[in-house]
C-alpha cells in the first residue's frame, strides 16, 4: 500500500497507539478527581501539554486542548470578535474558517477575503490596505491544505501588530505544525490552531494556542476544564497520544522535512517524463515539501484517483468529487487562477516521512500505464 494522502490524515505513530491504549487501560480516571488515580491522569495531561507547548515554543498554560483543528478555528474566531466588527481573511482558508465567516457575515459582520497570487500566497500590501479602524481579527492559514502554499505569517503578524496591537491575529497552523518551524516567541500571533492527526497523532484531538492575557470567550461552558475556556472531561488518551506525536514531530522536524523535500523534488523530476502535466505547487520557498498538487490534462482527477486505487496508491483529488456535487465545489484552485481543465484533473499527493522513494517510482509507473488509457476513454 502506498499512502500519499497525508494532508487528509496521517498514520498514527506506533508509540502514539501504545500511549493511547495505555491511557485507556490504566489512566481512565477523571483528571479532576481528587484521588490518586485522578492525579495520575492529570499528570498525563500536564506532560502532553508541555510537549505540545514545546512544539510551538509556547508556555504550557497557553495551550488549550480542543476536539481538533476545526474546533480550534471556530473557538479562536468566534471567541474574539464583537458585533459590527471587521475581519480579514483569505479566499483559500479551510472550510472550518470560511463557513464560519460566512455565517458571521449573515449576522452583520464584515469580512474581507484577500486574494492570492498564482502561487497561492496573499499580498502583504493588500492586507495593509484592508485594515480598517474596526478591524478586530485577521485570520490566515499558515499552509494551504490543497496546494501547500505558505503564507508569510511572521511578516503579516508583525505588520498587523505594528498598525494596531489590538487587532487579534489567528493563524490556522493545522497543515504546518510539526512540518514548519513555529516559534511563538517570533510569531506575534495571539491564536494558533493545531491538529494532532495531521502529525501522526490520534483523531479527535487538537489544540488552540492562546497567547497569555488574550481575552477570549469560552467555547463550551460546563465543568470549567481547560482554564474555563473549553469544558468537558478531558480526552486523556487523545491528549496523551497527541503529546507523544508532538514530542516526536518536534524532535525530528528537520529530518522529516528534509526527507519529504527530497521525495517531492524527486516526484516532480519523474513527472517530467509524462506529458500534459502541470505542477500547481512547486518545490520552492512558497510551498511546503509535503504537498504536491498536480493537474493531469485530459483526465478527470476523480477517475485517476480510482484508477490508482487498483495499485493500492491512495491520493486525493483537488477538485470537486463529482460534477453534481456543488456543495463541495473547490474554491482554492480557481483562486490561484487555474483553468477549468487543470482544476478537473488535479490530484494532490501529500507525503510524510514514512514514504519512500520507491513508492514514487511505483506511482510514476502506474501513471504511465493509466494516463494514456484514461485519456483515450474520457468519462
Amino acid at each position, binding site marked *: 500500500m502506498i499512502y500519499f494522502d497525508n494532508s487528509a490524515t496521517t498514520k498514527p505513530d506506533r508509540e502514539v497507539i501504545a500511549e493511547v491504549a495505555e491511557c485507556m487501560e490504566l489512566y481512565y480516571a477523571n483528571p479532576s478527581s481528587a484521588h490518586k488515580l485522578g492525579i495520575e491522569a492529570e499528570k498525563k495531561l500536564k506532560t502532553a501539554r508541555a510537549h505540545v507547548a514545546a512544539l510551538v515554543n509556547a508556555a504550557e498554560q497557553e495551550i488549550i486542548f480542543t476536539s481538533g483543528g476545526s474546533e480550534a478555528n471556530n473557538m479562536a474566531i468566534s471567541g474574539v470578535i464583537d458585533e459590527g466588527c471587521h475581519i480579514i481573511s483569505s479566499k483559500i482558508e479551510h472550510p472550518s474558517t470560511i463557513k464560519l465567516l460566512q455565517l458571521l457575515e449573515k449576522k452583520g459582520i464584515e469580512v474581507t477575503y484577500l486574494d492570492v497570487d498564482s502561487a497561492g500566497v496573499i499580498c502583504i500590501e493588500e492586507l495593509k490596505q484592508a485594515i480598517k479602524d474596526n478591524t478586530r481579527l485577521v485570520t490566515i492559514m499558515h499552509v494551504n491544505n490543497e496546494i501547500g502554499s505558505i503564507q508569510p505569517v511572521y511578516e503579516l503578524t508583525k505588520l498587523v501588530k505594528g498598525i494596531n496591537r489590538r487587532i487579534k491575529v489567528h493563524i490556522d497552523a493545522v497543515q504546518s505544525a510539526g512540518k514548519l518551524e513555529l516559534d511563538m516567541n517570533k510569531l506575534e500571533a495571539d491564536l494558533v490552531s493545531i491538529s494532532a492527526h495531521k502529525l501522526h497523532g490520534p483523531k479527535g484531538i487538537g489544540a488552540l494556542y492562546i497567547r497569555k492575557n488574550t481575552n477570549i470567550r469560552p467555547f463550551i461552558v460546563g465543568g470549567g476544564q481547560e482554564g474555563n475556556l473549553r469544558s468537558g472531561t478531558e480526552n486523556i488518551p487523545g491528549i496523551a497520544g497527541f503529546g507523544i506525536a508532538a514530542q516526536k514531530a518536534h524532535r525530528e522536524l528537520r529530518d522529516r522535512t528534509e526527507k519529504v523535500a527530497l521525495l517531492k523534488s524527486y516526484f516532480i523530476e519523474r513527472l517530467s517524463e509524462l506529458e500534459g502535466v502541470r505542477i500547481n505547487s512547486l518545490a520552492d520557498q512558497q510551498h511546503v515539501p509535503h504537498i504536491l498538487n498536480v493537474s493531469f490534462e485530459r483526465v478527470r482527477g476523480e477517475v485517476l*484517483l480510482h484508477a490508482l486505487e487498483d495499485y493500492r496508491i491512495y491520493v486525493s483529488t483537488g477538485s470537486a468529487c463529482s460534477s453534481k456535487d456543488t456543495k463541495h465545489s473547490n474554491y482554492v484552485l480557481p483562486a490561484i487562477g487555474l483553468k477549468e481543465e487543470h482544476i478537473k484533473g488535479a490530484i494532490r499527493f501529500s507525503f510524510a516521512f514514512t514514504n519512500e522513494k520507491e513508492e514514487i517510482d511505483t506511482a510514476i509507473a502506474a501513471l504511465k500505464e493509466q494516463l494514456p488509457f484514461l485519456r483515450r*476513454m474520457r468519462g
Partner: protein
Amino acid sequence: MVLCKLLGMGIQMKRLLIKYASEITLKGLNRRMFEDILVRNIKDRIGKEHRVEKESGRMYIDTVSSELASRLAKVFGIISVAEAEVVEKSIEGFAAAAIEQLKQKPQISTFKVETKRADKKFPMESMEISRRVGGEILKNIEGLKVDVHKPQCVVNIEVRDKGYVYTDELKGVGGMPYKSSGRGVLLLSGGIDSPVAGYMMARRGMELTGVYYHSHPYTSERAKEKVIELARKLSQFTGRIRLFVVPFTRIQMEIMEKCREDELTIVMRRFMMQVAEEIARRDNAMCLITGESLGQVASQTLESMFVTNSDLAMPVFRPLIGMDKVDIMDIARRIDTYETSILPYEDCCTVFVPKHPKTRPKLEEIRRSAALLSVNELILEAADNAELIVAEILE
C-alpha cells in the same frame, strides 16, 4: 381456565393482534400457502423464538412491544398491528377494558365503538355490542361524546376465540407476502426511482434480486456503497436482499470505441437489460424490474424502451411507468430511500453521457451498432464476474 382466573384477579393480558390483507383470505385453496409464507416472513423479521398463532383472518403474537409492532408494520401483507387487551367475552369485560383504555387518553373528546363478531355463538350481534359498550363508556367517563363519522378515537372490539379490545392501531404497509409471487431482478442504479420500483413489486409479493453496474474507475466505491445502502433500506421491508455488482467498465469501453456518440446510452441500456436477464436466468428469476417512468429522460421515451426491450425473452416490469417524479419522490421519502438516493456520487449512467443522446432510436440501427461488439461474450463475462453482496438491516 387460567385466563379467566388471571382476568378475575385484575391482571391485564395483552397480545399483538395482526390484521393481514383480506386478499389473502380470498385465495381459496391457496390461502394456506400465502398465510404460511406470511408467518415465515414474520418470524424471519422478529425472530424464530416468537410463536405466531393463526386464527381466521388474524394472527397473534404474545410478546407485546412497540419495537416489535413497528417491525411488523413493515412486513408486506400486514394491514395493521394493535396491542390488544385480552378480555372476558361479555359486555362487562369489553366495557371495563374500553373505559380503562380511554381513560389513558384524556385529550380526546369523541369516540365510537366498532365490533367484529367472528364467534357467531356469542349471543349478541355486533351493532348491539357496540351500542351497549358505548353506553357504558358514556356512563363512566364524563365529557366524552359519540361521533360515528369522525371520531378522535375508535374503540375496537373483536369477539373471536377470545375477546379483544384495542384503541391504537399501527398501520402496516399492506400488499402481499414477500416471496409469494416469484422472483425478479431489479436494476438498481442509485437514483430515486429504482428502489421505489423494487419496493412496489416486492409489495406485491415478488422476491427481489438486485443488480448494480459498477464502472470502476469511473465510479467510486462510494457509489457502490450507496447502492448497497439502498438495498439495505429496502430490506427493512423484505428481509435480506441479494445484490449482484456487475463490472461494467469493459462493456462501456467497447461501446465508446465502436458506436456512435449519440447511441452510447441506448446501446448501454440494451446491454444492462441483457446482462440483467442473464443474471436472472442463472438466479431462477423470471422478470426484470426497472424504475423507468415514461418520458422522464432520453432513455425512457417509448422509442428507447422499445429498443431496450426488444431481444429480451423475459418480461420487464416498470411499476413507475405512469407516475410523475414528485409522486415517486413521495414514496421514496416514505420508504426512507430518498436521502440515500440523493447523495451525489456518479453512477455508471452519468459517467459517459453523450451531449445529444438519441430520443427516437430505430431498432434496426441500434441492433446494427450493438452487433459491432461481441455481445454474447461481453454479457457472459459480465455475469460471470458479478460480485454477490447480501444486504440486510443491522440490528
